[in-house]
Structures are given as structure tokens and as C-alpha cells.
């Protein structure tokens, strides 16, 4: 019960602070329009923000709050990196690129930086990684940090897992496996769902009915369970062949996710099909290919691209969760989802040995950063394409 009393007392204190602050600001500034027209709700928001900052500073001072300090530092480093990246983009390279960077918000610069970094890491994994992803090296359960006094080893800066594989190398190879597969799967899902959705929008009638009802049936089954079911069947067909198993996984996730893309593409397409320029093209006698790919697709691009960013993250998380459950990317291939599962037990040490608990958090962080980065870029693209229209 006392927690509720604390919350109520804190809210009351903030409310008083807001009221006093607003009154004082009005008096001190001689009733300037800025404060005169400020509503109490806005003042409360400012007071709340102030309280949150104060709470943050207090938490920073507390000796136990290691993760909070890391998070704040990480945030600051990301912000600085994005700023430097944008600054570089504004002064280097061809004029067209410079102009893009000049209008870019910091979030988008961060997203692009993240995507470039991940792409480089994924492509050059074999050169960057110090060890192979499957290599079992002597020491098992080396603690991250590389400090021998704490149970680390300078040869393995991020430690090793239960059977002694280098976590840094596996993280790097994981980018290749997880991101690469997710990208391929999303592309496939978009090709399938986008083409069929736009086709359903243009043709309408019975084709639309058949496709839409089919999609409804697929969507009615919870996607993760459906994927698990299909993968179990597929694993019998694959008969232990690892490459075939991965291919089946890509196809299954692509088909399941294409249903969402289909829905979006169809509804966007229906809005465009009624436009006069599509009618003009129809009356000209244009074929279906021209209608879909030249007249409709370019205008459906903005929402589809936004969906692509989101869908990529979902596919990525689906692959990670399937791998976590043991039916996705098969060991010994490195994959972030599997890594989280393998190292999950170390999370129990978080309270007294933060470094040990870092091991499962690193692959999770890799997933989270990419998800955030991709969404930042997509937001920015959406903003730009909607700005062009006005």
C-alpha cells in the first residue's frame, strides 16, 4: 500500500511545483505571451520532465545502478556518433548526398549509420571476426570484459559461451546469418504480398475474393504457432539437411508475413485504382503489368516502404524466436536468437555481477539497436514522401 501513497505524494508535489512555477514565471516575465497563454497541463508536463531529470541524476549517483549508467552513456555515444556521421555527410561526398544530409534529422542519421555498420559487419564477417563461429576454443564461460581478476580473458573481450566459443565472433557471424536471412525473407514476403495485393486491387471481382479469403484463413491462425507447425512438417522433409531446413524456414515465414503485406497493398491499391490517371491508362488499353508496376506501385511506395521497415523487424524477431525455440537457424551456425537462449541463465547474475549478465544482453542489444535504427530511417522516409505531396 505504501507504494501508492508514495506515488500520490510525488504527483501532488509535481502538481504544486507546476502551479508555483507557472505563477512565478508569469510574475517574473511580466506576463509574457509565452507564459500567459501556457495552460496548466503544459506546465505540469514541464514539472514532470524536471522531476524525471532529477530522478535520473539521483539514480546516476547510486552505486548499484550500473546498467542505468551504461544505458545513459550508450545513449550519449550513439547521439554523438550520429551527429558526427551527419556532419561528415554534410561536408563530404557529392552535392546530392550533401543536400540529403542537410535536411536529415539526427534519428535518421543514427538509423543509417546503424544499417551501414550492420551491413559492413555482415558482409565482411569472415575478415572481421577473430575466430570462426563454430570454433570451440579452450576456456568455457569466460566472463566479458577481458579483466583476468574478474574471470575474463583479454583474448576474448566479450567472453566465451558454455562450450568455449568466442562470443564476439559469434555476434559478428550472427549479423550475417540473422540479418541476411531476415532481409531475404522480407523481400520475398513483399514480392509475394505486394504483387498479389495490387493485382487483387486492380482486377477485383472473384480473383480479389479468392485471394482475400485465402489470406483471411492464413491470418486466422496465430503466426508463430503456425510457423512452428509448418517447420515441424518441413523438418521431416528436410531430413536433417541444414541448408534445406533454412530454406524452408525462409519460405514459410515469407508466406505467413506476406498476408500482412497483401492486406496493406490491396487497401492502398484500391485507393489508387480509382484515380483518374489509372482510368486514363486503362482506356489507353494498357496491360496489367503497366498498370500495376508503372501507374500504381510508384504511388503505393511510401506506405509499402514503411511497412517494409516494420515487417523486417518482425521477421527478424520471428527468426530469433524460432531459433530460440530450436527450430530456426540450426546450431552450430551463430544466430542472435539462439545466443540469447544459450546464455539466458547468466541473466540471474545481474544483481551482483553485471559483467556476467552482459553475455545474453549483447545479442539482445544487437537485435534492439537494429530494430530501432531501421524504424528511424523508415519514419524519415515516410516524412519525406508525405512532405513531397503537400
Amino acid at each position, binding site marked *: 500500500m505504501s507504494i501508492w501513497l508514495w506515488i500520490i505524494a510525488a504527483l501532488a508535489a509535481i502538481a504544486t511545483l507546476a502551479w508555483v512555477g507557472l505563477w512565478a514565471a508569469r510574475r517574473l516575465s511580466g506576463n509574457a*505571451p509565452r507564459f*500567459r*497563454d501556457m495552460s496548466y497541463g503544459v506546465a505540469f508536463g514541464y514539472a514532470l520532465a524536471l522531476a524525471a531529470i532529477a530522478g535520473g541524476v539521483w539514480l546516476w549517483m547510486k552505486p548499484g545502478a550500473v546498467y542505468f549508467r551504461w544505458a545513459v552513456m550508450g545513449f550519449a555515444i550513439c547521439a554523438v556518433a550520429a551527429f558526427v556521421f551527419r556532419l561528415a555527410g554534410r561536408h563530404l561526398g557529392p552535392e546530392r548526398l550533401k543536400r540529403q544530409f542537410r*535536411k536529415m534529422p539526427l534519428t535518421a542519421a543514427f538509423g543509417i549509420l546503424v544499417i551501414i555498420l550492420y551491413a559492413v559487419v555482415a558482409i565482411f564477417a569472415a575478415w572481421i571476426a577473430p575466430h570462426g563461429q563454430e570454433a570451440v576454443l579452450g576456456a568455457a564461460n569466460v566472463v566479458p570484459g577481458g579483466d583476468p581478476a574478474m574471470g575474463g580473458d583479454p583474448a576474448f573481450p566479450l567472453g566465451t559461451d558454455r562450450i568455449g566459443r568466442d562470443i564476439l565472433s559469434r555476434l559478428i557471424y550472427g549479423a550475417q546469418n540473422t540479418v541476411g536471412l531476415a532481409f531475404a525473407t522480407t523481400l520475398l514476403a513483399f514480392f509475394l504480398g505486394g504483387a498479389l495485393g495490387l493485382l487483387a486491387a486492380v482486377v477485383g471481382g472473384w480473383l480479389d475474393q479468392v485471394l482475400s479469403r485465402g489470406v483471411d484463413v492464413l491470418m486466422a491462425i496465430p503466426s508463430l504457432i503456425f510457423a512452428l507447425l509448418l517447420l515441424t512438417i518441413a523438418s521431416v522433409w528436410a531430413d536433417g539437411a541444414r541448408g534445406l531446413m533454412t530454406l524452408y524456414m525462409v519460405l514459410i515465414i515469407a508466406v505467413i508475413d506476406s498476408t500482412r503485406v497483401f492486406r496493406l497493398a490491396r487497401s492502398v491499391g484500391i485507393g489508387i485504382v480509382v*484515380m*483518374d*490517371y489509372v*482510368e*486514363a*491508362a*486503362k*482506356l*489507353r*488499353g*494498357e496491360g496489367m503489368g503497366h498498370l500495376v508496376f*508503372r*501507374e500504381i506501385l*510508384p*504511388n503505393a*511506395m511510401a506506405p509499402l516502404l514503411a511497412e517494409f521497415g516494420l515487417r523486417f523487424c518482425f521477421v527478424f524477431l520471428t527468426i530469433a524466436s524460432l531459433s530460440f525455440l530450436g527450430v530456426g537457424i540450426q546450431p552450430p551456425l551463430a544466430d542472435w536468437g539462439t545466443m540469447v537462449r544459450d546464455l539466458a541463465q547468466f541473466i540471474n547474475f545481474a544483481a551482483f555481477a553485471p559483467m556476467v549478465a552482459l553475455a545474453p544482453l549483447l545479442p539482445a542489444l544487437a537485435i534492439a539497436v537494429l530494430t530501432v535504427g531501421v524504424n528511424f530511417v523508415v519514419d524519415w522516409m515516410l516524412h519525406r514522401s508525405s512532405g*513531397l*505531396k503537400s
Partner: protein
Amino acid sequence: MTPLLEIRDIRIEGRSDEDWHPIINGVDLTLGRGEVLGLIGESGAGKSTLGLAAMGYVRDGVRISGGSVVFDGIDLMTASAEEKRSLLGRRIAYVAQSAAASFNPAHKLIDQHVEAPVRHGVQDRSESVEDAIELYAKLRLPDPDQIGFRYPHQVSGGQLQRAMTAMAMSCRPDLIIFDEPTTALDVTTQIEVLAAIRDIVDQFGTSAIYITHDLAVVAQMADRIKVLLRGDEVETAPTREMLEHPREDYTKSLWAVRGFHRPEKPAPGPDSVPILSVEGVTAAYGEQVVLEDVSFDIHPGRTVAVVGESGSGKSTTARVITGLLPPRGGAVKFEGETLPAGYRKRSKDQLRQIQMIYQMADTALNPRQSIAQIIGRPVRFYSGLGGRRLRARVDELLEQIELDPATYRDRLPGELSGGQKQRVGIARALAAEPRLIICDEVTSALDQLVAEGILKLLARLQDELGLSYMFITHDLATVKAIADEVVVMKEGRVIEQGAKTAMFTPPHHPYTDLLLSSVPEMDPDWLDRLLAERGVEALGEAATGKM
């Protein structure tokens, strides 16, 4: 007596691409009590922005950078949000162009009507409802006791516009700003709304700013007229003086717009084969029959105007001719040869012969294709030209529509003005080298000056290329300017048809008469005279009698 509203040297800027560019550059405006001021100008002249600024309000991305707005001694530029709130809706009201888009579709009219009086504490809810019914009666809405209890979609456009005027009147404001309240309405509906607005403004002695681009409308409504051009004032004068002796060249050019007139071409000989014959066409959407036994001919090189109110079946006729809507009965013949009913069954050459130009150039041009792509596609599609010859043909077409190829070839439609977009729409139709072009309300979304330019261009192209036009419009001024023959439609039937001069000379069919007499004229007494002729007693008197 001090003026009610005084705007001094107001400067307004809009933001685009991180820069502020001027929208209004230092305009003065004075409005006396009970006076109606007309604001006219082309689109983009800053009429609406100035109208909103009179309420001390600007849209998002726009700011007032200088000048003052004083309403009845209150400086709206420095007034607090609280003070402004007590004025807006209570003493200053606003009537928007599209009532359909401005009413909240989720609430009944009456609930939206009473909001302002109840909130401002002028009346309680039941008083306000009674007052609303009285206002509805004064504005001659049908069934005033009940109409307020309907939702916006259950009421017609003209009625909604009157309901909105009633709503603006709910607190008996001192000033109402009308922003193009009749632009979206048919001529016959427009009259009712105009008469209603004028009488109610007269009766309560309300001051008003009436924004419009239609000169004939403003002539009926305003005591004084102010002409704006790209954010600058051109001139201000009392209505009669302005109409009779415009001082500035720009004003004169506005006045002269309706002067464009093309003589009727001589009637075709008896053995002339019509390029298009519509023969007894009946068409339906599902069960709903929308066209009944429609027949007319279009002869080569002539312009046939199809007129009627919205919903009369004009555009449906065009859909039947192009093959988008296969008819239930009857046939469409092109040069004596029956066309297949659906466009999918027509040959490429049959499709090429009939082209369309659309009303809304915004939706008629693909926003993601450059002008060269838009115009080049039909050229390539029908004639198979490519490379340098395609480019040369596109440039030639651009020159025909009076746009400079070097400047416009690579632009996107979004970078063109409304009139330029419509010209590109014409070029796309020409690119197919058709014999017949169907023009569906091509000028009704444009300003009068721009519309005149389009009409002149179409006339010139007809002379040069021997084109035939089917001209769908509800604007009889356009018909007078360009048509050779007129087909009047109502509720899916052809009411009357014949040569233009014959059609514009009495006696007419009663419906044609109603249509013709509803077109506003540039004479300030026109509305009074018309209402008197139609035997409608002045609304104010009718309402007073009821009270």
C-alpha cells in the same frame, strides 16, 4: 463611428523547405459595422489567409510577421488565448467552403449548433435548440423542426451550407467570415444559399467578409470589393463603382474574362456522318437506372456541350461512351460503326480515337511520373516512337499547349500550377492523335482567368487539328463561350437539345430556363430581380412574418 475591424499593414509568411516566404505583403483592411466586404482574387492570392487573419488566426506553418488586427478595440495580435477564445464563435464566426468536410460526421447538426452558445454561456441548451429551429426556418431549410436532428450525411450539400450559416449565426456574432461558401454547389442550389445568406446578414446587421473567386457572386453580396493579387491589394472600391469603372488593368482583365465568345460554327450538311452517335442508351449501376434513352450526335469539328446539375447523368454518359460502363440498351457508334460496349473489347485504334480530359488535374496525372513520361507514354504506346523521335514529339506537344519544353519536360505534376496541370492533361489526350476528346468539367476547378486560357487553347486546337469535343459542364458561361450545340440533361434523360443560339433564345423548356436564369450575372441587382421574377418574397420578410 469606429470601424468594427481594422487590419493595418498585415504581413503573413508561410514556411516551406525551412524558409519563410511571404503570402500577404502589407494589406490594409477596414470593415464598418453592418458592412459586407468582398475579397476576390485567383487561388494563391491570399484571400483565405487574410480572412483567417481577421480572426487573429493562422494555419499551421504560417505566421503573422507584422502589422495589427484590431477588432472592436481589441488588438488580436496581443490578446491572450483566453480573450481570443471568448471572441471566436461568440463575436466572430467562420463559414468554410466545404460544409460537408467541416461538420463532424459523428454528431447531429443540432449538437454542433448549440456547442458555441452553450460554451460561451449565451443560452442554455434548450433555448439554443429553439433558436436554431428559428434560424433554420429563416434560412428556409425544409422541415426546420426536425432537420437539426439529422446527421450531416443525411442532408444535401446546399442545405448543409445553410445549416453552417445558421451555426455561425447562433451567437449573433458581429462579424462572419464566409470562405467561398457556394463554390462547391450547383448553380440552382447556389442561388438559394446566396439569397439566404444575404437576407440573414441584412436582418441582423452583421458585418461580413465574403471570400470568393466568382465575380458575379461577389457582385450580389458585397457593399465593397477588395481585389487581391499574390498577397498585394490591387484596389478597393464600392461594388457598383468597381463593376462600372475598374481602375487597375488586373481588375479589368478579371472583368473581361466572361467576354470570351466563339461564334457558332455553321450547321453540318445533311449528308455529314456524325463522328459519334449515342443512340438510345440506357445504363444502370446495379438496380439504379441512371441513364434512360439518351441520344445525340457529334459531328466532326464541332463542340457539343452536355449540361445539367450534378447527378443528371452527364459523366455517366461519358463513361458509357468510353466503355467503362457497358450500357443496358442502345449503342454507341463511332463514324457509323458500333463500338463494342466494354473498353476491354475495343481495338487499340478504337481506343485511340476517343480521349478524355478530366476535371481534377491533380488526380488525372500520375504524381510520380515526369511530364515527359506522362505525355510520352501514349505516343510510344500508339505509334511506337522511341528515343530522339519520341522526345521531339513530346516537345512538339508541349509547345502546342504553350508550355516551354526545356523548363517543364522533367518536372513532376506537383511542381505545376492548376492551369498548367490541366494543359498537360490536354497534351496527354492530344498525344494519342484522337478524333474526339471528351472534356469532363475541365475548367470548373480553375480560376476564371486560367479557365479562359484553357478554353482558348481548346478552341485553337480544334481549329488546327479539326478535333471534335464533347464538353461536359454545369457552367453555362462556358457553354456560351465554346459550344456549337447544347444537350440539356436532367435525371438521366435528355430534356432538350439543339444549336447554341437556338437554345439560348426563348422559349425554353422550363428546366433549361431555370438553369439559364440561375447563372449569376455581373449586375449587382441581378439576384433581387431574379428573386422578384420567381415570385419569392424576400426571405427576411417571410421570417419576420413568422416571428
